């Protein structure tokens, strides 16, 4: 699971955007409703993403959707070299 890659000078493939079509000007109210739609709720699907990762000596890319069929514990933390 997770596809290995060799990083070059530019960071490889940035994060997949969660948003749909981007509009040139977003009204405050539209922005608010959009935000509410993407807001996470228990009992609802976890927003999918693709991120670069370090795993056991390799640089790889993972998508949350790859883990369908498995339980996932997703843990955010403030920064490396701090406690978790």
């Amino acid at each position, binding site marked *: 699971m997770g596809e290995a890659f060799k990083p070059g000078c530019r960071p490889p493939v940035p994060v997949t955007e969660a948003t749909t079509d981007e509009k040139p000007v977003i009204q405050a109210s539209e922005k608010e409703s959009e935000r509410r739609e993407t807001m996470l709720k228990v009992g609802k699907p976890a927003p999918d993403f693709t*991120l670069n990762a370090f795993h*056991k000596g390799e640089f790889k890319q993972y998508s949350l959707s790859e*883990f369908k069929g498995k*339980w996932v514990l*997703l843990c955010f933390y403030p920064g490396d070299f701090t406690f978790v």
Partner: protein
Amino acid sequence: MGIEILSVSVDSIYTHKMWNEHELSKMVDGGVPFPMLSDAGGKVGTMYGVYDEEAGVENRGRFIIDPDGIVQGYEVLTPPVGRNIEESIRQYKAFQLVREAKGTKATPAEWNPGDPVLEPGPDLVGNVWKVWSPKKK
């Protein structure tokens, strides 16, 4: 234990590598066993409501996601307080149990693996006190 762990911070994959090599591998044999994801810019953290734009870092957010990709539970703490992994494990085991029971079982407050579970239904209404009581500490 049957759960895939993914850690996420705004640090780069290079910093993850350094942290693993210089510190974590000295705390855990063989280094970090799970993928360390890099969310530079906090886009994913924003989707999950854990990214602090002012500080530019992600709060301590922990999400339990089931095999259908559904968020079953989460906990978010500000940086100075660390988490209790035992509680995450307890919740994961409870969610696993109720999923396997396909809605026929529920785990009451203070439930721990091995404790009796509730079987929701008409007979249980008004009778929870017979099968379950809070722990006396």
